[in-house]
């Protein structure tokens, strides 16, 4: 069974601080996605990474896929209250991308 562990589970920081969220597994994934979910809504896709070592930037968010495609990180620079939410990683297994396995989630709160 493929598992994705995210850390930290909870994070409360002040506006302007930097943070990194980690997504780790012992399994190899063919691609990995990051989502943000706000209360009462479904997750919304932020990025998909497919190549080992790949780095993608989305404004203040930087996503990295590990060289071995077993882990990923999300770094937020100068966090803002609008970044508050539940961040989820999701990996597509090596057997195909029909199914995505979701991580345990990181709940971020950015205080003004």
């Amino acid at each position, binding site marked *: *069974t493929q598992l*994705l562990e*995210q850390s930290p589970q909870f994070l409360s920081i002040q506006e302007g601080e930097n943070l990194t969220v980690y997504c780790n597994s012992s399994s190899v994934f063919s691609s990995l*996605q990051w989502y943000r979910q706000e209360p*009462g*809504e*479904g*997750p*919304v*896709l932020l990025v*998909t990474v497919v190549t080992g070592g790949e780095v993608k930037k989305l404004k203040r968010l930087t996503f990295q896929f590990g060289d071995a495609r077993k882990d990923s990180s999300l770094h937020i620079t100068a966090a803002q209250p609008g970044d508050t939410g*539940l961040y*989820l990683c*999701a990996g597509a297994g090596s057997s*195909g*991308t*029909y*199914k*995505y*396995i*979701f*991580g*345990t*989630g990181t*709940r971020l709160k950015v205080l003004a």
Partner: protein
Amino acid sequence: NAGVTQTPKFRILKIGQSMTLQCTQDMNHNYMYWYRQDPGMGLKLIYYSVGAGITDKGEVPNGYNVSRSTTEDFPLRLELAAPSQTSVYFCASRPGLAGEQFFGPGTRLTVL
């Protein structure tokens, strides 16, 4: 386009009752998914479908059934509801193997 719509938004069931959660998408996507999300956690895949007439089990299929008679609709059936099925249920769709997954707004189900 309405995207992915789910009904109802909220429902309270008594133990042993049954119900169908409705999911419809108007994007002509082949792939559709049902997930459940327990409080503060990530998403667990219940069932998925890669096209009309084709369904398969995910990580947590016990106690649920699905059907996919059309491209647009992917209902989830709960038979003999149990308190362990108290959760938020999300339906999602995507166009193909590499496409973005779009989520519905969710159905919050409580079994008492």
